């Protein structure tokens, strides 16, 4: 690591600029660790991992220890024998395929949809979905190994896929995306047994590592796109309210799974306020962690203040 050459981050002298950029690309957040300490520079990441793994553990307590707090999996579950939760994207496909689910499933889907609609759909991606850990790991390794290039599909691919999976469900009369969905393959695999499903998860990892940077979650996954639609009116949002302190180190762009969402807020492109309102922002808070200048923080969509 070349942080030693990075002594004057605010105004890096021209000759070392290239090498400091390179260090940003492989180890974004090094500056924040120096300024804020390791723990604060990983606060949201750690919190997210705790929540992600905690939810997974809740599901595993049953099969592992016979403690049935939550039964089922992310597709549909029953908590403490009373709270039904169902994935609304699955229900949408099921309805498109011509089924009328029972009221438990509709209620469960309604609860989930209402929660994400209110607080932000892509909280699912950053705080719940187990594939997030896989693609985050791939992105981390890709940076570390300095893998460049590949072929990234358009970021709208996922929205096309979202429409096409619903259409395919209607045409084939089955829940189309479940034939491949790595999210349910991984989650169900961990709880009920994998078979060969781990191959699909490995495929996603390798795709993100070797072919497309942030390819799966940022461009392909129609489930993320579905929750992205639910993210349009998200209450929880990230703001770049101290953007005047930004020193253009680019660390936030390097770690953000959806880097295109930052510019309008940080650089006031096509908007005045510092809120990141783009529906693709997953509210993962990684930008907050890695910023040595504490430019970002989590807030609500109504807080347009700037300091």
């Amino acid at each position: 690591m070349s942080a030693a050459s990075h002594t004057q981050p605010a105004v890096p002298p021209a000759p070392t600029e290239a090498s400091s950029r390179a260090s940003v690309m492989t180890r974004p957040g090094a500056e924040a660790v120096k300024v804020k300490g390791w723990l604060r520079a990983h606060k949201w990441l750690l919190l997210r991992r705790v929540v992600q793994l905690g939810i997974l553990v809740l599901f595993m307590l049953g099969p592992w220890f016979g403690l049935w707090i939550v039964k089922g999996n992310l597709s549909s579950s029953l908590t403490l024998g009373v709270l039904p939760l169902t994935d609304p994207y699955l229900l949408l496909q099921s309805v498109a395929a011509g089924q009328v689910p029972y009221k438990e499933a509709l209620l469960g889907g309604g609860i989930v949809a209402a929660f994400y609609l209110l607080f932000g759909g892509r909280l699912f991606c950053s705080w719940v979905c187990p594939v997030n850990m896989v693609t985050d790991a791939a992105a981390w390794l890709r940076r570390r190994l300095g893998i460049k290039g590949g072929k990234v599909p358009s970021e709208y691919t996922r929205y096309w896929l979202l429409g096409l999976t619903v259409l395919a469900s209607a045409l084939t009369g089955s829940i189309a995306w479940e034939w491949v969905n790595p999210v349910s393959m991984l989650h169900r695999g961990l709880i009920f047994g994998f078979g060969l499903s781990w191959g699909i998860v490995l495929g996603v990892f390798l795709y993100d590592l070797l072919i497309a940077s942030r390819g799966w979650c940022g461009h392909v996954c129609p489930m993320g796109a579905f929750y992205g639609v639910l993210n349009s009116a998200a209450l929880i949002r990230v703001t770049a309210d101290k953007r005047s302190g930004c020193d253009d180190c680019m660390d936030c762009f390097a770690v953000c799974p959806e880097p295109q969402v930052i510019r309008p807020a940080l650089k006031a492109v096509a908007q005045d306020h510092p809120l990141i309102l783009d529906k693709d922002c997953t509210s993962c808070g990684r930008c907050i962690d890695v910023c040595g200048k504490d430019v970002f923080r989590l807030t609500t969509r109504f807080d347009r203040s700037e300091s």
Partner: protein
Amino acid sequence: MLALGVGLYGAEASARPAEAIRPPGALPEQDFLAACVRCGLCVRDCPFDTLKLSELGDNVATGTPFFEGRKVPCEMCDDIPCVKACPTGALDRELTDIGKARMGLAVLIDQETCLNFLGLRCDVCYRVCPVIDKAITLELVHNPRSDRHAMLLPTVHSEHCTGCGKCEHSCVLPEAAIKVLPHKLAQGKSAEHYRKGWVEREAAGGSLIGEQHQLPMRGLEDRKYGDTRVAPGYVPPSDAPVKPGGIDSGWKP
């Protein structure tokens, strides 16, 4: 492209005849694949660990519940907890009497190895059946090999068999001679317009085309109708010379 591929793959996969035996109350396979969200709540509430979610590589749509009777059969719970657990209706709650479940149909598929078909008395599949004497009966037929014994052939009746798999589970052979198959593989189908004369006649309380003249059967004139037994040393009445039958009859076109 990807979605199209997935769609086609899905359509192709669901077009294959399903080999999986589904839990009680499962909708017909095509509807089942549209309704089941692969959550495994049915699996969790089955007290006998009968049900499993299929894994990629099993010959069943990934993530959907099924069971293999030979390993763990369905115990036909009175309260059918698996059906109650299903949130989507992929397992239909119209099913309240487990005796009406039609998970599959038992077929005595190998008559060459079944001990009862060899003329022995095994009867195990018959004895373990929860719907004994209705779903499976022992049909008595003459044993042509010994010519003096009966064979008691286990015979499954689709009207009553639930497909629970207890028979397949208990068959004493190293590979079960009786197996539960999905109805699609186990059953034929009569053409709509077929009528069975004897059934129609019973229903109408008499022949629909008038009582028919019963023609005498040569050589059996002194017998009751239907009695074709041949007594030892029986010689047919000799007013007509006995001619050999079959290919030795000497008949020429």
